[in-house]
């Protein structure tokens, strides 16, 4: 049996970080890889749009957007049990949004085991990035008269024009406008180097997750329960939506993964500005410290089993 190198790179970073090696990737590399992966995914989604008549996709897209808005509404009350309003709202937003890298590893996993999937999931990934952020801000501000932080206009700007959003939507537009023929001369970069580049990104993610261990120690039990319980529960929501869309086993797996993954690029940036009172250590500890490695190592194959069971 051979191991998936993509996951091995993550484990290498994690091990190096835990062992306090002096390995560090330059910040500029991390930023560059983020830009690149977001553009890749956006372009792929855009090529989907170019392929299918937009009217066919519209009802599906609406359902997916609804899922993105529903997730924070569903988990906010649960989190309120133990957490102040702002923190519950912020974490809810993180889990309603999605992790682009987790999705990419999921796609790599399915290709590896030869399981086909509906290509419009890439488009859904782009769509899911935002609605949860807006719901999260509303939840955080509900009831508090004097807006803590920025006004609504500025907030919407922050959420809509955040780096990840612009790159995903920009890539989407470029893919849709240029079409497969137009994008072909760029394939050597945006297609061929996507998966190998992911390995470097995951090496860095391993290092970053290792750096979250301090928080895990402090808030251990709560983060553990939330960071594993939420994706497990949400994966079934994703499967439910996938069934409503009549998807294949591969598609169901990715829908589960989209619902189960939590954003750690777009959401933290947006929440920091929109909900300054929320403690970023808490939401990042759960989303990045627990849920991300859980999905990577356990979740992806598990959701695939779930999908096989219901398909």
């Amino acid at each position, binding site marked *: 049996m051979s191991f998936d190198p993509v996951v091995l790179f993550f484990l290498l970073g994690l091990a190096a970080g835990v062992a306090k090696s002096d390995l560090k990737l330059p*910040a500029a590399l*991390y*930023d560059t890889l*983020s830009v690149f992966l977001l553009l890749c995914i956006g372009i792929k989604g855009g090529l989907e749009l170019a392929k299918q008549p937009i009217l066919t996709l519209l009802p599906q897209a609406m359902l997916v957007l609804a899922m993105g808005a529903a997730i924070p509404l569903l988990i906010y009350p649960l989190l309120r049990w133990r957490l102040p309003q702002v923190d519950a709202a912020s974490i809810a937003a993180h889990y309603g949004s999605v992790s682009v890298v987790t999705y990419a590893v999921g796609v790599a996993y399915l290709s590896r085991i030869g399981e086909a999937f509906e290509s419009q999931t890439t488009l859904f990934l782009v769509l899911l990035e935002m609605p949860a952020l807006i719901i999260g801000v509303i939840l955080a501000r509900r009831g508090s008269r004097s807006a*803590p*932080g920025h006004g609504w206009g500025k907030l919407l700007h922050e959420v809509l024009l955040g780096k990840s959003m612009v790159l995903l939507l920009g890539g989407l537009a470029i893919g849709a406008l240029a079409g497969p023929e137009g994008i072909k001369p760029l394939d050597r970069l945006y297609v061929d180097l996507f998966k190998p580049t992911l390995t470097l990104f995951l090496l860095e993610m391993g290092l*970053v997750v290792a*750096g979250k261990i*301090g*928080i895990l120690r402090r808030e251990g039990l709560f983060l553990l329960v939330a960071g594993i319980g939420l994706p497990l529960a949400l994966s079934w929501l994703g499967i439910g939506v996938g069934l409503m869309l009549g998807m294949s086993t591969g598609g169901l797996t990715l829908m589960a993964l989209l619902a189960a993954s939590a954003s*750690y*690029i777009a959401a*933290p*940036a947006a929440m*920091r*500005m929109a909900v*300054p*009172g929320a403690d*970023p*250590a808490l939401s*990042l500890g759960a989303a*990045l410290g627990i849920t991300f490695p859980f999905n990577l190592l356990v979740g992806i194959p598990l959701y695939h089993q779930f999908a096989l069971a219901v398909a």
Partner: protein
Amino acid sequence: MTFHTRTLLTIVTESALENDLVDLFHLQGLRGWTIVEARGKGEHGEKRASFDANGNIQIELIADTAAAEQLATTIAERFGRHYALVQWLTDVRVLRAEKF
């Protein structure tokens, strides 16, 4: 040439606040400042990279003493509660007083 006394305000805070602070400077009619990327540790934990909105910046701004103190107070009141923030004032001497 002669040297003139001014006050240097140094602000270390989350890079997410850069736009807000620059807006504030413009609002108060301040004409110049310098920004450097920084990392650090404080009450709000360690700040390292820029990726999860977790970077620091260090801003240096020379003004007359009253303006610098006023600015520091405003910033502390507006951002001190929720954001990682440390500020300090230093007496400095400058050559071209008309620039500050």
